[in-house]
């Protein structure tokens, strides 16, 4: 392909040259990378995290629309340009991430569906754009995202700062919503796989088979779109699309109790080639706990080793490069095998520094209390956390009962933002900046009252309960190892998601469990019962009374019998008085 160089016109308005120079067009600057990180967990389970990243240097916001898509999926590109989206983060999760047993995930996500979007400054009506965007995304991902409306959307004032490049952050352009009830199944995975450049035909996406992925303790698929720096100077930006899939396979349900994991056992497939459109395709196995191969062995062996600082810890990884033909060996397929040598105990896991729980206390269907418990496991450092709570309107919170206690003493938050709910219009929003003392447990409690809904507002299965979305706790956790702030060095994808501004701490987001709350539910067969009872009462009670009052009694001669009739007839003929 060729392009015509712009005509060079000098100051006098005269053309410098009349000839056209034909040079080849610069290649479209898009790039696709894929990677898989496998981390054996201390409980015997295994954690696999897929990341697919497409980088594209283009401008979706310019007037003449982008029409030539190569690696970037067209459906998402059109969504970005139509709704003037600056950042989009959507996740679908089944299961809850157990931080105390599994450590911190590379990319956290709450159970159900979560969507948060930063719009461009040029958008005039953010709420209308948000409503249309949720409908379009529900069609793309085959999910019920159209249930996101004003009753479960909030506008956080301090949490969820943009993860990409931005000029200024005005929280009026941010919207956050979560659907804790949303189910994830193959119908969500199918369109997600179709967004990848190679689809599910080549590369790492070949391993994504739904029958194995959904038979797991935790499954999460996400899409993140944001503008990122292209190089160190950061003078130009390019759009980044990250699709991640995190799954934790259980030792007993998927592993049959045996502590031996292989790609075939986890995914029922092996790898035969990298995606031809990918510039890099790698598998990382976390071998930090296994420096001299004393606990488990890895086959086929690989000479490549890599170190990365991720989540405040320096980890060592064995690397398999799928773009090299030698990785596949003579059998032309790669089936990684991790076999544990003995069942003895191992060194203890690095305790996660921040951990949170949430539960509902109280009894009955009138009132209750929400408790959010945050654990700071650092021995001597305290750090601030930002807690975001979005509670639906039908749980009426009494904010005067809000208490924050650490180690038994009152702990006043340094920043509170509370937006009260409006019945059937918007939910409660509570954001607090709390300083967690070292090695402590902080408890946030607030009492609430349950509302009675209108009978048309109940779901078809109301006795299941109503869900309250997870709380989000964002924190900068002090790190024991110096974090890498160089944003452009060749980093594995899993360590370069959250931008790192300082070396001594790393950003982490923890989600609590969603709550399941029973609301006072009427008996829906009651209208029928009431009609029957009322009609019976009216018929028996009122009917009897009416008859008693309005019935008049008359004396009636009984009909004479036949013999008497004949006798009377004869007597009449004879002229004799009749029988009575």
């Amino acid at each position, binding site marked *: 392909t060729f*392009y015509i160089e712009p005509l060079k016109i000098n100051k006098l308005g005269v053309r410098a040259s009349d000839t056209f120079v034909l040079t080849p067009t610069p290649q479209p600057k898009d790039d696709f990378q894929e990677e898989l990180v496998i981390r054996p967990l201390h409980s015997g389970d295994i954690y696999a995290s897929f990341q697919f990243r497409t980088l594209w240097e283009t401008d979706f916001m310019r007037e003449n629309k982008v029409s030539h898509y190569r690696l970037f999926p067209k459906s998402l590109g059109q969504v970005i340009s139509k709704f003037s989206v600056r950042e989009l983060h959507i996740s679908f999760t089944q299961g809850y991430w157990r931080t105390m047993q599994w450590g911190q995930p590379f990319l956290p996500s709450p159970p159900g569906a979560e969507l948060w979007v930063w719009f461009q400054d040029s958008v005039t009506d953010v709420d209308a754009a948000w409503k249309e965007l949720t409908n379009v995304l529900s069609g793309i991902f085959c*999910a019920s995202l159209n*249930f996101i409306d004003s009753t479960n959307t909030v506008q956080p004032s301090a949490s969820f700062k943009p993860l990409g*490049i931005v000029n200024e952050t005005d929280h009026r352009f941010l919207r956050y919503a979560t659907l804790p009830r949303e189910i994830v199944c*193959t119908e969500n995975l199918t369109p997600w796989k179709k967004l990848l450049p190679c689809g599910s035909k080549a590369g790492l996406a070949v391993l994504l088979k739904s029958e194995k992925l959904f038979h797991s303790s935790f499954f999460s698929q996400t899409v993140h779109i944001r503008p990122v720096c292209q190089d160190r100077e950061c003078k130009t930006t390019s759009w980044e699309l990250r699709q991640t899939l995190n799954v934790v396979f259980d030792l007993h349900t998927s592993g049959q109790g045996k502590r031996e994991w292989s790609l075939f056992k986890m995914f029922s497939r092996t790898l035969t080639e990298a995606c031809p459109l990918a510039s890099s395709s790698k598998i990382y196995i976390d071998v930090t706990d296994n420096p001299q191969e004393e606990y488990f062995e890895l086959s086929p062996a690989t000479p490549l080793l890599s170190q990365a600082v991720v989540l405040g810890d320096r980890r060592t990884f064995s690397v398999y490069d799928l773009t090299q033909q030698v990785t596949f060996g003579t059998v032309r397929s790669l089936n990684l095998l991790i076999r544990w040598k003995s069942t003895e105990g191992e060194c203890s896991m690095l305790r996660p520094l921040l951990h949170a729980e949430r539960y509902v206390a109280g009894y009955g269907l009138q009132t209750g209390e929400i408790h959010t418990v945050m654990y700071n496991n650092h021995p001597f450092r305290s750090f601030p956390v930002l807690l975001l709570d979005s509670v639906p309107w039908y749980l009426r919170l009494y904010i005067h009962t809000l208490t924050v206690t650490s180690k038994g003493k009152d702990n006043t938050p340094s920043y509170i933002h509370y937006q009260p709910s409006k019945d059937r219009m918007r939910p409660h929003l509570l954001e607090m900046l709390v300083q967690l003392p070292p090695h402590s447990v902080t408890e946030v409690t607030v009492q609430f009252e349950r509302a009675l809904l209108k009978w048309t507002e109940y779901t078809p299965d109301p006795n299941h309960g109503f869900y309250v979305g997870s709380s989000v706790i964002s924190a900068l956790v002090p790190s024991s190892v110096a974090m890498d702030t160089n944003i452009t060095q060749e980093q594995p994808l899993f360590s370069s998601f959250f931008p790192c*501004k300082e070396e001594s701490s790393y950003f982490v987001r923890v989600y609590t469990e969603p709550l399941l709350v029973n609301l006072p539910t009427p008996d829906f067969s009651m209208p029928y019962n009431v009609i029957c009872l009322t009609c019976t009462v009216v018929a028996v009670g009122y009917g009897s009374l009416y008859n008693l009052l309005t019935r008049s009694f008359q004396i009636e001669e009984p009909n004479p019998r036949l013999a008497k009739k004949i006798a009377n007839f004869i007597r009449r003929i004879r002229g004799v008085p009749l029988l009575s």
Partner: protein
Amino acid sequence: VAYLCFYSVQLSNMLAAIIMLIFICFCVHFQNTAGQFFSSGHTNNWAVLVCTSRFWFNYRHVANTLSVYRSVKRLGIPDSHIVLMLADDMACNHRNPKPATVFSHRNMELNVYGDDVEVDYRGYEVTVENFLRVLTGRLPPSTPRSKRLLSDDRSNILIYLTGHGGNGFLKFQDSEEISNVELADAFEQMWQKRRYNELLFIIDTCQGASMYERFYSPNIMALASSQVGEDSLSHQPDLAIGVHLMDRYTFYLLEFLEDIHPASKSNMNDLFKVCPKSQCVSTPGHRTDLFLRDPGSVLITDFFGSVRKVEITMEAIHLTDPILQLEDGEEVQEKTYSYVDQLPVSEIIHQKPKQKDWHPPDGFILGLWTLILLVFFKTYGIKHLKHIF
């Protein structure tokens, strides 16, 4: 003169004969075109497959719908032309011992859920209102394309409903019902809006025949799994999963459809014979009086498959020169971008409260101030007014 008369009569006879001949030719021609007119004149196929039951013990209704979905996809209708509505999720239900699968045969022989499924309406979205809106096309403007039935007057539509029903109604999700009158009216709306060419309606519920009794729009053929007063029964339970897997009528329908391939010539009369009373226990019924063509001439693939009209051409097509994209002049950016601090503590603490939109004072406040002013002037007299204004 006699000769002239004779000739004129002969001429007029001949003329009449010629006219008659031409007229007969025309008639034959018209019959041919009429025949063509009434033969299947559809150009695209759509399918609306609805499962209306919720809860785990209604697994078989989801399996019914998915087996028809699977057949319809196999015979050529693409996902963009199928509107699949499942009222509950059975595949990833926590009670399913084999997640991401829905089986139709015992011993887990056939997984009808598959690996490439797109459900358009799921869970609480499957309501009577949404179903009728899909049929009539009266959806809110922000509805995505995959959730719309974009049929035209040359579309053949297959509509399959399954769930719990009774005499004259079908239950949606245990909380609402659709009656046969409503359904008939919806089809009439579709006919008046020219939203279908021909429609095949299949229903697998108890007393299913009552649902098609009230249809009055042309070009509808209906099948039901049982007559009024009869119950449709389920087929076989699977002891590992613990529920009944399929309903009898759809089970034998699936077996029948598995033998159909995109080029097969089976017609509707074979479909009417599916599941006789010996196999189904209930008596399947059908209704063809509203349908203009003879059911024997209607192919199964007219509704279950997809028409692909291929036009073969031998001429070469000349491609134009590629559109040249002019590169914008390189603007030298002086600004450096940077990432934002994720938790700027000092900024958050000193954040100014959001500027609230100014609202005019509420009625209560106005009344309160009026009362205060009234009391003031009552007590102190009106002459103080000049000090205020």
